[in-house]
């Protein structure tokens, strides 16, 4: 009896999040507009071959979209006084976390798929390995949606505080992950730091899928993203449980 209730709770929570939070301004600003402006500011006015940076741009889009919903939900619910009601339904903390992750993942998959499809149709970009691209899309979106939910862990009621905190964590990652400087060209401390970023492995996996070039073997990219996803989920579970009634 518990398993169907658990699955139902995840699905209903995901639907609720999609209906309420996809339209919120911070999600649109940080999830859609921000990666676009970042890329435009990097690309415009410079003589750069867009094809080289396209996998990095796709990874950055996915990273920002998938991780934009998660940090917002719990603080918003606590501020609005709906979190206690949510907990009174037949759900557990894990149900809520997975519902939040799924909502972030779907957002990432939809937006990134649109960007990839538009680039393939209008700019004529070929996809070298579509299976690897789809796996990168799914695993990456799960990983960064989990990161988003983990970033919602501080026990604050104010979504703006959490958005600041999440920006503090997310922004440095895009500069050490081979998006603007290809991984092959990173040296010394930059190279070592890049190994610590989950985004590095997603950029590399997209390179493997979209243009057939990658630095790491695919197995390493896959394993690293999987380990980071599990780690983010464990962090989210620990802090959400610890801060359950704080801010109510």
């Amino acid at each position, binding site marked *: 009896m518990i398993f169907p209730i658990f699955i139902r*709770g995840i699905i209903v929570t995901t639907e609720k999040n999609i209906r309420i939070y996809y339209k919120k301004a911070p999600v649109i600003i940080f999830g859609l507009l921000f990666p676009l402006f970042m890329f435009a500011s990097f690309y415009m006015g410079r003589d750069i071959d867009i094809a080289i940076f396209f996998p990095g741009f796709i990874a950055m889009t996915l990273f920002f979209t998938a991780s934009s919903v998660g940090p917002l939900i719990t603080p918003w619910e606590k501020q609005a006084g*709906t979190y*206690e009601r949510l907990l*009174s339904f037949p759900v557990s903390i894990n149900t809520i976390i997975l519902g939040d992750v799924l909502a972030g993942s779907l957002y990432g998959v939809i937006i990134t798929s649109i960007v990839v499809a538009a680039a393939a149709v209008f700019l004529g970009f070929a996809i070298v390995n579509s299976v690897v691209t789809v796996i990168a899309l799914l695993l990456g979106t799960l990983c960064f949606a989990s990161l988003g939910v983990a970033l919602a862990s501080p026990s604050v009621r104010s979504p703006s505080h959490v958005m600041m905190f999440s920006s503090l964590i997310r922004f440095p990652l895009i500069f050490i992950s081979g998006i603007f400087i290809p991984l092959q060209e990173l040296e010394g401390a930059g190279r070592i730091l890049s190994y610590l970023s989950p985004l590095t492995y997603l950029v590399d996996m997209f390179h493997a899928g979209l243009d057939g070039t990658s630095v790491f073997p695919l197995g390493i990219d896959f394993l690293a993203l999987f380990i980071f996803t599990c780690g983010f989920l464990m962090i989210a579970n620990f802090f959400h449980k610890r801060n*359950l009634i704080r801010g109510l």
Partner: protein
Amino acid sequence: MGRCMGAIKAENLQKKFGNVVAVDTVSFTVEEGEIFGFLGPNGAGKTTTIRLLTGMLTPDEGDVTIDGINIRSNPMEAKMVMGVIPEAGNVYVDLTAEQNIHLAGRYYGMAKNVLEKKSDHLLSTLRLYERRQDPVRTFSKGMKQRVSIACAIVHSPRILFLDEPTEGLDVQSRRLVIETINKMNKKGSTIFLTTHNIEEANKVCERVGIINQGRIAAIDSPEKLKSTFDMTQTLEVSFDKKVMKDFFVSDYISKIDMCGDKWVLHTDNPDQAVKHIVSAADKKGLRIVSLTTCGPSLEEAFVRLTGDEK
């Protein structure tokens, strides 16, 4: 099922936050079909207790059984049989009233057609049907609370927990809430209600539990609690002309207070006290505008039990 089986059983519940003991060895049973009131001053442990009973918090010690289901080991199953109106249980203001109710019903796995029928019925009963498609953000506090109640009872729970359900509501909304609670109870639901409104508890509840500083101070029917503490009754009287305090002095009247345009007289013998007042008024040519006898109040018992009497 008869009323011998406890719908809600709390056994030696204890919850600490740091060094503060919020709930200290609290035990009680609420019988099936009963309306049980839970009273206490601010910070006494009411909300923590209700959060322990509804599975939101896990007790440090002790156990909670809901309809025979241990909430610690089977929280999801226990939550399926209960409806909760939490203290800060707002509904989603971005959704319409109907969407909120449907959302709640879907968490309980209700079939679409059943849910639509039940939702329409609740919206009509709670006088929200005309506004069902409007976002809740456009609603008054009373209307929001009615949506909140609809969300909590959409699956016809066997046990309903309400944490301060009438707090801050206007008279009409308060009456509608109480009416809904009574209807749910008549249909067989067990009601667990926390409130600051002692008179409300007095009118609605079959038994009340009083908690103070995390411990249960008393559990009994309102009438028994009232009679435990004070056998003194009061008379409230007002005249068409002003009278002085010494007008009431009598062996049958132990205390005289002025309260607005009325005099409040405390007596152990209301029969003789009333006769004395009527006779004295007659002699002075005064017309009695109102005369009321009042028994000991639950509020008095509450104040005595919680030690706040000055």
